[in-house]
Every structure is written in C-alpha cells, then in structure tokens.
C-alpha cells in the first residue's frame, strides 16, 4: 500500500488517507480480505497521529470499504466494484455541487459555469 500525504494541503490528512486507500481498493491493488496495517503501525510509518488513522479507518468502515474485527484488525471488505465506483461518483458530485453553489453566489450563469468546466478540461489535455 503506498500512501503519499501532503502536510501543507488544505485537505485534512484523514481525508487524504481515506481517498488513497479507497483508490487502492477501487483500482484493485488492495483486494478483499487483505489485512490493513494496524492503526499504530500506519501512524508510525506515516508519522501522523493514531487518531487520524483511526478516523480514516472508521469512515472507510462506515462507507463499507473495510471491516474492523475487534482484536484482529481491519480488513478490506468484499466490495462490489460498481458500488465503489458509485461512491467515487458521489464524492465528485458533492465537490461539484459545492463549487457550483459558490459560482452561483458570485452570480455566474449556467453557461458561464459550463464554460469554466470546458476550459479546465481543455487545459488538462
């Protein structure tokens, strides 16, 4: 499992951690029933607080990506690929919804928002 955390990012560390573990699962690098490192181990390796790791694990469990067996540790859950993709889609949608709301607050029209999106997509190519 490779995790890269950006300490100066505005995205909270637990969220970065969650997203990366999710990606590993969705892209099949972490298969179901794989044991995840213990909270303390991962915290030591990434040099972050154990509570941060725990928070990420807890959220991942809520979203059904991992299962925690008391006394044994956390494991990658049996995930339905589609369900996982749906979860990603939902995250992206939520983010877009936020930005669109912001744009509307600035008085952007629907077309203007679409323009911005197409420009950014163009730039990416």
């Amino acid at each position, binding site marked *: 499992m490779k995790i890269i955390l950006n300490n100066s990012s*505005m995205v*909270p560390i637990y969220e970065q951690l969650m997203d990366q573990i999710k990606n590993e699962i969705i892209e099949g690098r972490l298969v179901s029933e794989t044991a995840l490192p*213990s909270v*303390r181990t991962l*915290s030591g390796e990434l040099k*972050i*607080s154990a509570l*941060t790791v725990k928070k990420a694990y807890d959220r991942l469990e809520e979203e059904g990506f991992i299962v925690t067996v008391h006394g044994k540790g956390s494991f990658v859950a049996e995930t339905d690929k589609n369900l996982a993709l749906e979860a990603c889609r939902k995250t992206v949608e939520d983010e877009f919804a936020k930005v669109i709301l912001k744009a509307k607050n600035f008085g952007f029209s629907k077309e203007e928002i679409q323009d911005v999106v197409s420009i950014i997509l163009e730039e990416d190519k």
Partner: protein
Amino acid sequence: MITAKNVTKRYVDFTLQVDFEIPKGRITGFIGKNGAGKSTTMKLILGLVSPDEGEMIVMGSSATNLSIKEKENIGVSLAESGFSPYLRIADITKILKKAYPNFAQEKFENACRSMGLPLNKPMKEFSTGMKAKLRVLVAMTHEAKLLILDEPTAGLDVEARNEVLDLIREYMKEDEKRTVLITSHISSDLESLCDDIYLIDNGKIILHEDTDVILGEYGILKVDQETFQKMDKSFLAKTVPTSFGYTCFTKEKRYYKDNYPGMVIENVKLDELILMLTEFKKGENEK
C-alpha cells in the same frame, strides 16, 4: 491511565494548576515554553513532588503512594538525568536487571548496538545525542506500560531527534495498550508523534486538542484591514494586528476557506499556535 483532578502545586513565584485525563493507548504531548510547568507536571505524575491540593491518580493509585510493583510499570526519562559518567552501558545493565524484573537485557543491548552506543565505553565519552538515546532506551526496555519522557529530544540535532521519535513509535507498535507522555519545547517533534496535545502556559493548561484537529481544522488567516472589517468574525479565536492588517487564528478554517475564496489561509504549526495563544494572554494581562 492518568487522571489529574484539580492538581495544584505552589512554589514561591509559580503556581501550577492542572486538570486532565490521559487514556490508555495514547501518545500525549505536553508543549509549552521553558518554565511553563511541563516538568513539574511530570514530577507530580511520578510522585516526585506531591500536590498541595487535588489528586494525581496514576494507574488507579495516588501518584505519591505507588507501590514498587506499580512503579515497575513506568518507564522514565527525565531531562538532565542519567548515570554516573564513569559507568559503561555494560555496568548499568547490571543495575537495570536488579531494578526491573522485566528488564530485557538482550533486547536492550541489541538496541544499543543498532543505535551506535558502545557497551564498553564510559558514558563520559558519549555525545549529547548518545546520552539522550540511552536515556530513552533505558526507559523503554523493561516492558513498561507507561512511558514518561521529559524533553527526550532537547539539545539533539534533527537526525538524532528522528531516531528518538522512531524509538517511541516502535515501542507503541509493539503493544497498542501502552501509553506515552512526552514533553518538548520543540513542537514540530510532537506534531508527527502525538495523538493529542496539551499546551501549558504559566502553570495552566490553555489548550487541549487532538493533533488531528489542530492540523486539520485550525488555521491562520492573513487579512488586510478592509477584508477584516467586512468578514464574519464569529469563528476567530484570536486576532493579532500586523503590518498588513491582521493575523487571525481560527478553529474552523474550512468555514473561511469555503466562504472567502482567495483569502490567505495557512495550516497551523504548533509553534505558531504557542506564540499566538501565549501572546494573547500577555495582551490580556496588560489591559
């Protein structure tokens, strides 16, 4: 693991008054300026000084009445403490074996070797870093359930500091029920190590927060006069005037990030937090 109930200790020109609860399985950090009361707190926990008021409970017993058996469960490294400089590690091993029935000699000697500490040299020939590493190793190689480290990284260079921190991380990995209490005035050390942080100033705890929350939700805003007048100030915990306007400390950086695009928002470093919060108190006093 440790409970301080209204613990008060008075000295001629200094009073410490603390309340806290440290659960099992945590790495808890105490930060603060020199003379803030960190070491006194550690001494109270170890029963080396007794409180004038209140109660310090360690592993279920009063800190001043811990039995020898209970004390064996505590590993300690105090700043400036140590063994006679004329002894060698090979000599202190014998002392430790007698003092702690659970002392793991082989593990200790292996750890010393891998840290580059010679077993057969008198300790007066050790560098500051070597002495510090030895202090921490001594504290952690008798299967202690509670580790109390007062300034284990003071005076060390960045590499030696990292080695000491890694030792603590390893110790916690071995058994997740262990508890570590660490003080430091080099707060960047604690950012990457501790689960929660107490900020102590002038004998009082002025902040207790999970490291995760400090790094994830606290923020420093830098705004000019004009923006400052107009912005919502309800989530500002502290504001300091500067040459360009104001530097503000918030516990809700996301609120400002979402509502004020373009505003300069920085993540909080513990050092800045100490300065912001302790300066604040100074300002208050002057009023």
